[in-house]
């Protein structure tokens, strides 16, 4: 019988590990970082996901839904006192992005999320003003 002499390393690769639904799991591992920096990091990563990844490569809506759920979880895990500091550490573009996620979170309320999001909304509004909400409404690139 002929023996297969090509490399068989590919048989050892677990394709399910690289399933795009599982990609989010890596970011969840980052929850151990401290509050404000973690928020900035997640927002940065989301920003990168949006601006660097061409949209046609984001295969499905579930990619964004995963991102939304993650952000809402991150926002809910903040203590009320830390919210103001976290918002203060963001720059203008960051505040606009945060507003976009807050409104996205409002669209799909779950248990306690609306109350927490309202607190975030109040703090973000104080920094960004009504203009940041207008930018959520007129933005061409939705979250």
């Amino acid at each position, binding site marked *: 019988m002929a023996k297969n002499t090509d490399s068989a390393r590919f048989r050892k690769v677990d394709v399910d590990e690289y399933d795009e639904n599982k990609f989010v799991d890596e970011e969840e591992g980052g929850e151990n970082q401290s509050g404000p920096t973690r928020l900035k990091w997640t927002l940065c990563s989301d920003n990168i996901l949006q601006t660097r990844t061409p949209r046609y490569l984001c295969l499905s809506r579930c990619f964004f839904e995963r991102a939304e759920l993650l952000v809402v979880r991150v926002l809910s895990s903040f203590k009320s006192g830390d919210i103001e500091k976290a918002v203060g550490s963001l720059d203008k*573009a960051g505040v606009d992005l945060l507003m976009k996620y807050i409104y996205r979170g409002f669209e799909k309320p779950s248990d306690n999320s609306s109350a927490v999001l309202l607190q975030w909304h109040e703090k973000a509004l104080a920094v960004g003003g009504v203009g940041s909400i207008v930018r959520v409404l007129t933005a061409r690139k939705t979250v």
Partner: protein
Amino acid sequence: MAYHSFLLEPISCHAWNKDRTQIALCPNDHEVHIYKKDGTKWNKIHELKEHNGQVTGIDWAPDSNRIVTCGADRNAYVWTLKEGAWKPTLVILRINRAARCVKWSPRENKFAVGSGSRLISICYFEQENDWWVCKHIKKPIRSTILSLDWHPNNVLLAAGSCDFKCRVFSAYIKEVEEKPGPTAWGSKMPFGEMLFESGGSVAADQTLVGGGGWVHSVCFSHSGNRLVWTSHDSTVSVAEGGKTGTVNSLSSETLPLLCVTFITENSIVAAGHDCYPVLFVYDGAKGSLTFGGKLDVPKQAAQKGISARERFQNLDRRASETQGTEKDLNSLHKNSISQISVLEGGRNQCTKFCTTGMDGGMGLWDVKTLESAMKNLKIV
């Protein structure tokens, strides 16, 4: 600052004559009314009735004393004063949607009309046939043109459009003028050539700057080297001719601004849905745009003590015992401001400007009084 309430309906558009004694405005219907100042009162002296649809733009040429109006009935009329009455001349624009804005060129030999047909009509007078002819600028406009402004050299035209872009076109008509010299925006200017388009620059890690909302209003500075425009996503942007790719925008915290003008080479006044004008300062050396201040001095309500009755009323209405003063409208205009025009001093040394809005009123603002009334306000 003076405020005069003309009507209860919104003022769609207005234009002043050369010596600022008469104002032509549209009271949100098919007519144009001309008011004349008489001491402190304003008397209506003319009614211009020719349009079949709402008049969306009026411009009054100061030197030749002609008024051009454009309306939702897809027509434009040029009005000349003959024996004390205004006589209209129809201008065929060849558009199939409403006209939105109109502006005389600085030398008043042509005017530009922006319309919903996604094109700009440049109209000039042809002597042989004794009528107004128009040429179209179509590419690459993708949506309604909301606002227009001419460059001082009579050839370049800035257009703000609903496709989220602000552009500078050349409107050179060889029949009425000689070839223009080079400017900061470019040197080759055949008719219809686009010399600048906003929305192309993307800063390193930010979302698209200066783009994302309909461009409501555009304005050239006095020298023509700077262009400012306001957009529906609450941003104000400034571009300088010659420095391609650098567009400096400021995301404001206010509601979208509907009208903007330069009052000096570095200071910009804009007004919009927040019902008060705001000042922006542009630093050419650093290329930065900063918020200068709110230009409205609200009358300070005397702080009386709150009676027990008022406390309960507030508790009932607002769920809080304090009086929510920030919710009340303390500004001069009680509704959005839709148009701003410079009255005296031109765009480099403006001393007075005027705003009209959806509350049917006209506000006259004096720059010196504003400067002295508001601390920290510096108009450079």
